[in-house]
């Protein structure tokens, strides 16, 4: 991938360039330690921040909205007229963290990677330009909950972005193009060629920042193995289930959760609107079948579904990655502290204590 250098005080010019033909979304600071993605306007453009805690609500909603109109239908000439509603807006997300880049890539695999392609997702995704920012500031960029090192998604994304920016210090950023669209930007005079010394600096900063993560969930692979083999004890799942208050928050803030439900609702004049909404495996109605049977009626059966879906070998093989990107949001959102890092630890501890996983005996 080609690298260029851009001066720190010119970085936001990338936003200006993109705004010529995109709606640009970028991170801002709110009250307290809140941060959020919002559409860039002339008024707020100067307040865009590069180093800040990753926004709590992931940018997933720009490709998979919390609630999305799919189509309207109305009676006409004895049949139904269908009126699909597509969103063809060109959009760029500036300042997407590497974990969230991996999240969108995971959604790509799910919605576009197999036999049936989702036309709504596809249009939004095709029109999306991603500017990834590498997390290098241990005070601002890296939260207590971050564990992208363990999910192998950060701190610097390797692909699936159009442009990647990394702060090299000394008033310089390195820009890396991931797609021809990203590389096309390099024609602008704000970009200068990178020297081998600057490439070396990038490598050094990255290897240093890897040691600045506060919370590393080092037992992912063991947990993947235990879950894939069905070795997690029922009592561990129950313990996890008892701490779930069924709020759905973990799925709503997860950049890699894909589940949705579809429902129709009347909008007046005999017209019906079909909407798609985020759904959550924490909720009792999620797996209930029409006949009344619910294979995951108990809360712990619903909770273990979440972790099977994210960590079982079957799904990893299907999507070529875990459905967990290590952003740590589920740890922050959970009432009962059963986000991914805690669950990995609970499973590891309970399962490893069992004799049968310790093959060597005296």
């Amino acid at each position, binding site marked *: 991938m080609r690298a260029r250098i851009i001066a720190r005080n010119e970085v936001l010019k990338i936003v200006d360039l993109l705004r010529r033909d995109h709606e640009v979304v970028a991170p801002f600071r709110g009250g307290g330690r809140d941060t959020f993605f919002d559409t860039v306007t002339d008024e707020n453009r100067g307040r865009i921040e590069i180093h800040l805690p990753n926004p709590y609500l992931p940018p997933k909603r720009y490709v998979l909205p919390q609630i999305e109109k799919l189509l309207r239908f109305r009676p006409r000439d004895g049949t139904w007229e269908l009126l699909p509603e597509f969103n063809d807006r060109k959009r760029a997300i500036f300042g997407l963290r590497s974990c969230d880049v991996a999240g969108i890539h995971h959604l790509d695999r799910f919605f576009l990677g197999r036999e049936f392609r989702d036309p709504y997702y596809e249009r939004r995704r095709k029109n999306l330009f991603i500017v990834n920012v590498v997390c290098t500031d241990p005070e601002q960029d890296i939260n207590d909950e971050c564990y992208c090192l363990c999910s192998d998604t950060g701190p610097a994304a390797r692909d699936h972005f159009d442009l990647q920016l990394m702060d090299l210090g000394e008033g310089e950023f390195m820009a890396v193009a991931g797609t021809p669209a990203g590389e096309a930007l390099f024609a602008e005079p704000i970009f200068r060629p990178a020297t081998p010394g600057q490439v070396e600096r990038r490598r050094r900063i990255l290897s240093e920042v890897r040691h600045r993560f506060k919370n590393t969930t080092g037992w992912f692979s063991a947990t993947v193995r235990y879950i894939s083999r069905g070795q997690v004890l029922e009592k561990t799942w129950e313990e996890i289930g008892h701490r779930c208050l069924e709020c759905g*928050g973990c799925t709503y803030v997860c950049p890699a959760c894909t589940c949705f439900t579809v429902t129709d609702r009347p909008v007046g004049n005999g017209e019906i609107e079909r909407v798609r909404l985020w759904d959550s495996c924490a909720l009792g109605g999620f797996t209930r079948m029409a006949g009344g049977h619910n294979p995951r009626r108990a809360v712990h059966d619903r909770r273990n579904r979440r972790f099977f879906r994210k960590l079982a070998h079957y799904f990893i093989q299907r999507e070529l990655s875990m459905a967990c990107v290590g952003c740590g949001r589920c740890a922050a959102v959970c009432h009962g502290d059963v986000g991914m890092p805690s669950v990995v630890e609970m499973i590891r501890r309970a399962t490893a204590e069992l004799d049968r996983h310790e093959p060597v005996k005296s």
Partner: protein
Amino acid sequence: MTGVYPSMSHPSNQGRICVRGWNVHEVASSTDRLRQPLLRTTNGFKEVSWEKAIEFVARRMRDIRDWHGADALAFFNSPRCSNEESYLLQKLARAVVGTNNVEHGTGVYCNNSIDTLLEMIGHPATTNSVGELSESEVLVVDGVDLGMQLPTIGGRVIRARLNGAKLIVVDARRQRVAEQADFFLQLRPGTRALLYGAMAKVIVDRGLMNLPFIKSHCRNYEAFLEAVRQYDLLAVAECCGVPAERIEAAAVAYAQAKSAAILYSTGVAARGRGSTRALVNLALLTGNIGRRGGGIFALTEHNNLQGTCDMGMLPDRLPGYCPVGDEAARRRLEILWKARVPETPGLDAQRVFDNAGGGQVRGVWLLRYDPVNTAIFCDAASALSKMELVVVQHLFMTSTAQYAHVILPVVAFGEERVSFTSTDRRIQLAEKVIEPPPGPKPAWRQLTEVARALDADWHYQDAGEVMEEITRAVPFYSGATHENLARNYGRQWPCTRDKMLGTKYLFEEGIPPQAFNFAVVPRPQTPQGASDDYPVAAIFGNSLYYWNQNVLVQHSETLKRELRVLLLDYPEGFVEVSEEDARRLGVRDGEKIRLVGHHGSSVAAARVTGEVRSGTITVPFFVKEVMKQIMGEGAFEAVSRTKPVFVRLEKA
């Protein structure tokens, strides 16, 4: 509005909210919002202009008042209304019409708690902050399913437990939070006051009471001690069905904690004054008031139940809780309002809807209140159908609105800047983030227009001006201007002019001498226990949250589905039976079960669950017939009933 997410910086929830919060945006964007005022005609409802609707309401109100007196009108709202609209509604009733017939719809449940807290500690609210729960060494959770009803607080409790706090759960049901308890006291129904009396006895016997605190801050200790001596741990244990050692250990843990919090619900649950008094006694005995991480959490299960009460939506109390009979308090408001304030307590919602206040009430005003659907204590539909005037302010065509003579469409959450007061006295602003659709007006503006049509001199330009007046009407809100509230995540009252930042926990600056009163809770009669013929105690209570038929649940696609799950599983409702009892009867989940009582019997579907204690059966309030058939009593008696009913279970 296409979505919603919580703020990680909020001091109470830190970014953790419940499933309802995550879906709250769907109300404003519902496709069936009311847009124009509707007037009932012989051919159904007809859209009319705002001028015509306001003129109609004012004329009919004036007629009823002139012919039948001010007390022929009554004004009720939902505990989900903002402070500003609650305040103006009671002001309209008291100052413009001249009646104290005002109430939020849930008085039957929470008034016992308000009165008890006022009499014992002088403040009818949670004493401490939700955020302090992480500093409590011991938490007592009494009779509230925090996991379902108040997950934000439930989460605080669970995380405090994970960080080493001791958790005592007192409940007949084994709910989610009980799974984490160090001491789960799964008592028999109706034995709460006994249990707390016994805990007090243990504390006194072991000398664990906080005598310096009691001596300097409390009155009536001797009388309390006298009453406590009547309790006997072993007898109480037998009666509650909880091992004596466990009661004793819980009492000792509570008393020895540096800070211990008690959480109970003022919501939809039968709770006698006795058990609430006994709880507050425990806090006084151990000095857990005016202490960080300690206190009494009188949890309000509606988003603005606290604020609605603070604003005086009570038939016997003015804004700020002074009794309507208090002449000085009345005088103060009369000067502010430039109008006379009636001095006799008014009728509450239950009395009006049960029999129209003895036929006296002819017109009711219902602000976002849907009693036909939600009031389990009466047959509101029948009462409303006899009224001469029913004014409904609501977002939707509710079951109650069907009985209206005029319906005034209001704006939704996110479409106006108003304030709400949460369960830990936090007065918060809900900001306006989108414009309302064309047509609906803010409820406070509608109230202002009606008052003006009734010749009152009201000139509020925005809700901020209403709040300005509230700062003068309610002493402990005197600093709570919108400007001040907007500076942070609201302010906790008392928020006064000389303490603009508010109060994290009551008495944080010291406790006045003899400020608190012990209550004498005589040892209750041992509840008439089970007999061989009728061995099972039936409790009437709230069920899982899906059954709350509120506006949000009905208009969120996700929440509606969750509601339907139970409706589809048990189309005619259910009663909850323990796994053990079900096995003994040979009844499987969903099968019919017969409850045979002294007076009659009833058949219902059994929902078999591990949450219910063996020997008890839970009957949700919405299954109104069961109570009637067993006892010949209506649902209201069930709500106010603090003693269990005994039945025999049979396979039907």
